[in-house]
């Protein structure tokens, strides 16, 4: 019996000495180990997915919660449009108001932190890909991803350069706006350059260094794309040679390197037509299959970000912000300058474009549906559901509902029209006024068949007209901001024109070198980057 009990004691003690700790299972995220294993089995899948992840960020990245005006690159297009002359905020709405008041640049604000994080995340993702690809490789399947990663990185630095320092040159000789006071910012501190080769925190590089990085990255990407037959792919959602070329043309225009700029703009002109006719021009810019789309993103039910999206902010027929109160309008005197027979006038609901009575104090938008325009010069350029859906649901929309499918509108990042207008401007800068005029007229006839250039004969006059047509063409798409930065165009909302519909509080006048257009480096970067001190703040 006693032996039995001792046996029992021994038995009972047994589990005390058995060890069995297991690894934790992690079935939520893709882990590094699995990624590496999968990369060995199927490198194309892993690289293509890494790239798709960057695309996904470009569509939807947001750093802060509960802020419906950040959604990747298109929110840059929207918010910078608010920082110019041509877009009007129709009420004192909390969201985006301070962008519109050009008063959202300081180091502690969400705006600057959000953009910084978005583009450096893109750079980091690109660097991660570049680290795993041998730069000497000749394997075309892998080279493709090297090109995309370089291209994306170049794009991200280009975007940073727009916000965190003045343009390389503020303004240009022989333009109406002339040179800025300081003008040459090439040696000013810009942003840190982080690449696959750098280690640890980096100090600020100069604008020139950043522009060199941009040109290097995008140029290499473009060359690879050309070499592997990817100058233009069939899928507009691909970052391909034409995408790289567009960004390169922008970069070379910034540094006044007109020949190089022309070379790359010409790539787009050679590869893409421009939109033509009502069906295309008034479609609503929500279909990446439109012929002018150089680069875009297919928005589906799987990746839509609903209220936190471009069409929520921009589409007057949506149930997003623009449809239910935060109406988008264009600057009255700007729209007034658009020719009556210019098809693009129909993007804006003004009495001239719709021809209705204004007696009851109520404008009626007659463009496609019988729905009251909520405000004068209301913009109806961007339609997530597309024009056909708006016409089909006219009655329901008139009752105040959104067009079904507004949240599924595709994102268009780059359109070929930009290159056509860049080409005209570059030719003008180069002194080829006749060539510039021809390029402009050819383009404009697709919008306004009666168009002939009839303004002054100086270079300055011509560039001003090209710029105006570009602002009309790209209203709301962020282009005005980029050109204002580059060409030293003052933001002046103080006009006494009775059609000046800017909010009284926003009637300000700011030249391009004013503090308001230059985002401060986010305070978190200053505080945590060991290579920076508060004195590095721009």
């Amino acid at each position: 019996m006693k032996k039995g009990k001792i046996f029992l004691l021994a038995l009972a003690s047994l589990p005390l000495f058995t060890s069995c700790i297991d690894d934790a299972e992690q079935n939520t995220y893709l882990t590094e180990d699995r990624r590496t294993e999968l990369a060995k089995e199927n490198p194309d899948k892993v690289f293509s997915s890494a790239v798709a992840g960057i695309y996904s960020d470009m569509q939807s990245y947001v750093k802060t919660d509960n802020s419906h005006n950040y959604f990747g690159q298109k929110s840059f297009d929207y918010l910078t449009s608010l920082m110019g002359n041509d877009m009007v905020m129709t009420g004192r709405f909390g969201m985006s108001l301070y962008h519109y008041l050009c008063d959202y640049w300081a180091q502690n604000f969400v705006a600057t932190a959000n953009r910084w994080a978005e583009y450096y995340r893109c750079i980091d993702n690109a660097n991660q890909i570049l680290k795993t690809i041998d730069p000497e490789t000749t394997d075309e399947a892998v080279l493709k991803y090297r090109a995309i990663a370089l291209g994306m990185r170049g794009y991200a630095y280009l975007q940073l350069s727009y916000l965190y320092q003045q343009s390389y040159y503020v303004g240009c000789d022989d333009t109406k706006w002339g040179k800025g006071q300081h003008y040459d910012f090439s040696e000013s501190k810009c942003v840190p350059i982080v690449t696959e080769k750098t280690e640890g925190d980096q100090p600020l590089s100069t604008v020139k260094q950043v522009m060199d990085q941009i040109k290097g990255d995008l140029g290499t990407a473009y060359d690879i794309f050309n070499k592997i037959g990817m100058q233009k792919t069939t899928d507009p959602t691909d970052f391909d040679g034409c995408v790289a070329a567009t960004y390169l043309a922008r970069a070379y225009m910034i540094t006044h390197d007109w020949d190089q700029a022309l070379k790359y703009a010409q790539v787009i002109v050679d590869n893409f037509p421009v939109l033509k006719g009502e069906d295309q021009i008034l479609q609503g810019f929500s279909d990446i299959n439109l012929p002018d789309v150089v680069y875009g993103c297919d928005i589906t039910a799987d990746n839509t970000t609903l209220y936190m999206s471009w069409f929520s902010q921009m589409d007057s027929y949506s149930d997003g912000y623009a449809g239910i109160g935060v109406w988008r309008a264009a600057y009255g005197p700007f729209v007034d300058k658009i020719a009556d027979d210019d098809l693009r006038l129909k993007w804006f609901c003004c009495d001239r474009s719709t021809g209705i009575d204004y007696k009851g104090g109520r404008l009626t938008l007659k463009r496609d549906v019988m729905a009251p325009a909520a405000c004068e010069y209301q913009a109806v350029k961007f339609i997530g559901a597309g024009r056909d859906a708006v016409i089909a649901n006219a009655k329901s929309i008139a009752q105040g509902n959104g067009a079904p499918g507004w949240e599924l509108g595709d994102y268009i990042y780059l359109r070929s029209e930009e290159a056509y207008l860049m080409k005209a401007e570059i030719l003008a800068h180069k002194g080829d006024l006749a060539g510039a005029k021809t390029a402009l007229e050819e383009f404009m006839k697709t919008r306004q068949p009666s168009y002939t250039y009839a303004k002054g004969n100086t270079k300055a006059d011509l560039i001003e007209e090209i710029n105006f047509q570009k602002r009309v063409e790209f209203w709301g798409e962020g282009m005005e901001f980029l050109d204002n930065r580059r060409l030293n165009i003052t933001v002046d909302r103080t006009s006494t024109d009775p059609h000046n519909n800017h909010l009284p509080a926003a009637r300000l006048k700011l030249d391009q070198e004013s503090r308001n257009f230059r985002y401060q480096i986010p305070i978190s970067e200053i505080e945590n980057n060991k290579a920076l001190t508060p004195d590095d703040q721009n």
Partner: protein
Amino acid sequence: MVKKIALTLCTALVASSMAMAQNRTVKGKITDANGNPIIGATVKVEGSKTVGAVTAGDGQFSISVPANSKLNVTYIGYKPQTVQVNNRTNLVIVIEEDNEQLGEVTVVAYGTKRKQDVVGSVTNVNKNIIANAQSSSVSSALEGAVAGVQVLSGSGQPGSDAAIYVRGIGSMSASNAALIVVDGVPFNGKLSDINPQDIQSISVSKDAVSNSLYGSRAAGGVVMVTTKSGSKEKVAINFRGTWGVSNRAYKDYDMATDQSEFYRLTWYGIRNTEWAAGKSLAEAAETASSSLLGELGNYNAYIVPEGEYLVNTDGTFNKNAKLRYNDSFADALFKSAFRQEYTISASGGNDRTNFYLSAGYLDNQSYVIGSSYERYTMRANVSSQLKSWLKVGTNIAYSHTKSNGVQERSGTASNPFETARGWAPIYPVHAYDAQGNMKRDENGKPIYDAGTGQTDGTKSRPTAQNQNIICSMNEDINENIYNNISTRSFIEVKLPLNFKFVTNYAYDFTNVTSNSFMTPTIGDGASFNGRGSRSSGTDMTSNFNQILSYENVFDEDHNFSAKLGHEYYTYKTTYLYGQKTNFFDPYNSELYNGGQIQELTSNSVTHNIEGYFAMADYNYAHKYYLSAAFRRDGTSRFLDRWGNFWSVGAGWRISSEKFMESTKSWLNDLKLRASYGTQGNEAILPGYSYGYTPYVDMYDVTWDGSKLGYTVAFYGNKNLSWESQKTFDLGLDFRFLDRIYGNIDFFTRRTDDMLFKRPLATSSGRPYNWENIGAMRNNGIEFELNADIIKNKDMKWTVTLLGSHYSNKVLTLPEENREDGIVSGAFKLMEGKSRYEYFTYKYAGMDEKGNPTWYTDEKDEQGNVIGQTTTGKYSEATKYWLGKQALPDFNGGLNTSFSYKGFDVNIATAFQLGGWAYDSQYLSGMSASLYVGHNRDMWDTWNPETGKGKYPIWNANNSSNSYTQTSDAHLISASYFSIRNITLGYTLPSSLMKRWGIGSIRVFATGDNLALFSKRQGFDPRVSMSGGNSSYGGYSPMRTITGGINITF
């Protein structure tokens, strides 16, 4: 290693033996003062730990003792008594109730201990505080109930647990919350799963010697909850029912809720904005009068004669204005709610088997519409002595809750508390015509104002069009169904040589199913023809341990016990979520009824911990104590798995010393205790799934409808390991004049290799990195002082004062951060300073035009700081040390209980002194936006007419230089005093009960959250450790006032 220890232990124990004296059998009965038998009391021979008996169902016991020995009788809640046997063989012992000294026995890690033998710092919570708890979770009742404990509640939603923090901040970025142990096993459910009526006791263990046996997870202290068990008594059936009302406990900030005042205030804001923009005062006033309604979306709650302004150009309200509607959201959102709770329990047992069964129901509607909580609880605790050497038992609890929550973490339009405060009171809930009649649809139902022109004269509400929270809350579904099954089972085997083997298996399972539906009729779901989602999350925890224990008494006075154990813990959580839009039937929220799939996802993670532990306790004659424990833990959270934790403790009962004889007349007890030990922390905050394997890089998988992609979600750190904590505790327990008793403890708690979520430069592509960095220390003192001011047969009055003070200091930081520190929100981590030391901008008053200014460094041309100046540009301001910190200087509670015959009164309060909190919630009411709710303090903004004001000018066009920017101006004293609970009761006389054949009846009334005194109306400093409320949803606690009855048969 472990084997060796066990072997040595056994040899040592077997070697010693015990001399047995000649014995005789003594029988007896133990009763209370009323002659009722006491069941379950322990009778022991003094000086012996092994020889003992437990009284049976009739209070009888039988024990074999040496002649002329002394018997010690102990029973929870009664005073211990010593009886001289004196050759008697039949005794009747009457023991005296001791309400004050509940903790005769206290729960410690893996067992129980006599309170007087504990060398660590363990506090038993007053049982009245638990019994009177009205809150669905007993956690909030601990506020002010235990010295050294802070209770923080981020939400008043019934069913939500408050977080419990013990002795300051042990960790920088990992969890600081106390470990909740229920019936001996770490508990992953919510404390609100447990019906407070099922709780026998709660004790809070604060120092290393008490906690190191829980090793890895006890660094934040341990709250040990023990549920009731059967007591071998005659079968007792207890019914408790309460009925009452719940209301919002504390007023919101002082908002301009009166409509006419709101218009006048907004007029003031517009006028000053216009003046600041350059207009003359007269022009600005004219503009304010003419544009007032336009700025407010033409919402006019009054009817004004044609051509007149609502607010005159002198800022007065138009006398001819007739009220058109008064229908604000703030009024519609809150109402009194009915509360009812019932618990019925049965307990009893026989010589072999004990049982406790209970069932409870709580219906706790909240004061905010759309928020409710219903809970069913059941518990069965059965144990049986199957053989003389074998005991088994199981304790199974089930709780089922159904709650409707409000969106506390969402924007102004969806969070009712934000709507109530942040929406102008002139936006009506319903639509009105020009004459002020409520508009109705064809069925006669009132039409809601959705902010898109329903109310005549309006076109667009300047905030949240197409939203109406009242309508949404009536039509939307935001329901959680929660089930928790919690089991604790054990097998206890008595082995030879005073060994005992216990194995415990605990399995907890929780499932929460959420059903959310946004109606197609209005709000966010409208343009999608309805949006519905379902989610199901399960948590499964199992805890399996095996403990070999030994207990013996040598030579009467040498008490020795030891334990050797192994424990394995696994946790698995799974989650499934689906969302659809386009619902066929607007009143059917099932996904089956929906069309388009919007989201479908699932995930799961696991977490494992394995531990080995050993402990030994020795005391000589309850005078000298020694205690030691060791635990080795491995966690799946780190690649570097294993950590070793240990503790030693000693105690000295000074009052038992010979030289203290002379004090015997007044000093009942005096014990000095000291302990030192280490614990670990691996609890990277849950809620982030990556926190379970923070050593690997992880990627989010993306899908755009055709392409799979991935982006970095988290960068792992392979070197991450245990955060370790060393705690030293020195305590003194005392009791004198048999009336005044308590304890005082000094502690120092040092954390090394802190788990820290270190912010990185965003340009690195990584937002932060989890690292083990630096060290931090908390030094503190805490005390509990009880006084039985009146103590006689009919009347008792006890007052308890408890409190603690601690200071926190960051000791070391990594080399590269040593000079500049690490900025963390409004704080900066710096060696030598508190973790919650404010480092931010300093407000410097107003300039001559009423604009705010801030301090900034003045620099010479080389960039050297040569002084301080002020700037009106916020972006140029400099951050400074403010010399203020968030942590309170002192916090505690003052509690009292009074009884006279059958009447009793209990009052529980809590308070905090010192500390500064950042009051973000208040600032939303100080916004310069025109169309939002305003705090009445906005009247005190700088007035251009007088050139005076307490706050800077109201300028709606000023954002980057607005007064509401982060600065020291918004710090507020975090001191408060709260009356947490008052309970009045009356127990009917026992003579009457005997006549009625009922055990006892008590009727009572109780109120929770009766008052809060803080620096500013609406400000509650109890929502976060730093006192700041930026992430607080505004769900203020409930004031619950109920009446009830407790009947025992």
